[in-house]
C-alpha cells in the first residue's frame, strides 16, 4: 500500500517479499520495466528521468488506491526511479495482491497504463547521435482510455 520514488536501482526480490509479506493473498502479479537499448529507430546508451516529486508521489498514491478499490487488492506497491539510468537498469516496478488472478493482473496493467500518462516523469534519451526528450505515445493514451470505458472483468 505504498509508493517509492528513488534514484537507486529497484531490488525486485526485496520488493516482492515485502509486498507479499507473511500472509499472501491467493494471487500476486508484478510488472517490471527496464531501460531499453533502443527507441524506435535509434540506439540509446543512457536515460535521464526528470520528475516533479510532490506531484508524482500524489499521483502514484492516488492511482494505487484507485486500483485497490476497483480490483479489491489486499496489497499494492509502486516503485519509480528518477535520475540517470543505464541501459538494462530497472525504471519501474508495480505489484498487486488480490484474491483472484484476474484482479491482480488487471490491477498491474491499470497501474502501469495510468502511470505512463498521468505521473509527472519525463524521459530524456542519450545516444550516439545526441540527446532528446522522449515524445509521448498515442498508443499509451489509447491504453489509458480503455480503463474509462471497459467493464471490470
Amino acid at each position, binding site marked *: 500500500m505504498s509508493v517509492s520514488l528513488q534514484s537507486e536501482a529497484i531490488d525486485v526480490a526485496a520488493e516482492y517479499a515485502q509486498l507479499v509479506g507473511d500472509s499472501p493473498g491467493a494471487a500476486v502479479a508484478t510488472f517490471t520495466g527496464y531501460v531499453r537499448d533502443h527507441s524506435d529507430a535509434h540506439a540509446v546508451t543512457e536515460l535521464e528521468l526528470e520528475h516533479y516529486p510532490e506531484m508524482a508521489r500524489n499521483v502514484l498514491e492516488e492511482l494505487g488506491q484507485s486500483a485497490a478499490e476497483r480490483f479489491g487488492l489486499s496489497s499494492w506497491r509502486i516503485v519509480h526511479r528518477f535520475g540517470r539510468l543505464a541501459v538494462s537498469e530497472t525504471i*519501474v516496478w508495480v505489484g498487486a495482491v488480490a484474491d483472484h488472478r484476474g484482479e491482480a493482473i488487471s490491477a498491474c496493467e491499470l497501474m502501469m497504463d495510468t502511470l505512463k500518462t498521468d505521473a509527472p516523469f*519525463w524521459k530524456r534519451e542519450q545516444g550516439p547521435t545526441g540527446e532528446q526528450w522522449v515524445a509521448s505515445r498515442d498508443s499509451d493514451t489509447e491504453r489509458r482510455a480503455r480503463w474509462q470505458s471497459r467493464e471490470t472483468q
Partner: protein
Amino acid sequence: MSITIKLFSALREALGESEFQLDLSDISEASAPVDVAAIKKRLSQRGAEWKEALNQPNLVHALNHKVVFIDAVVSEGDELAFFPPMTGG
C-alpha cells in the same frame, strides 16, 4: 497576490527557468477570478519563446499537483506547473 510557477522537461529547458514566484497583484484586483488562462497570457508577454512554449497544443498544467483545465481558478500561494505530456514508466 503571488504564486509559484514551475516548469519541467523540454519547457524548463527551452525557457531556462525551473521555478519562480509570479506577482499577480495587478490582475487579481480586477473583478474576474484569475485562472490558468490569465496566467498563461501574462507569462506569454515575457517574449516570443514564452509565447510559443506556453501555447504548444499538448501543454499540461497542474495546479497544486493536480492536472487542471485552463479555466481553473488560481489563489494566493498556489503552485502552478507547466510541462509537456508525461513519458515515465
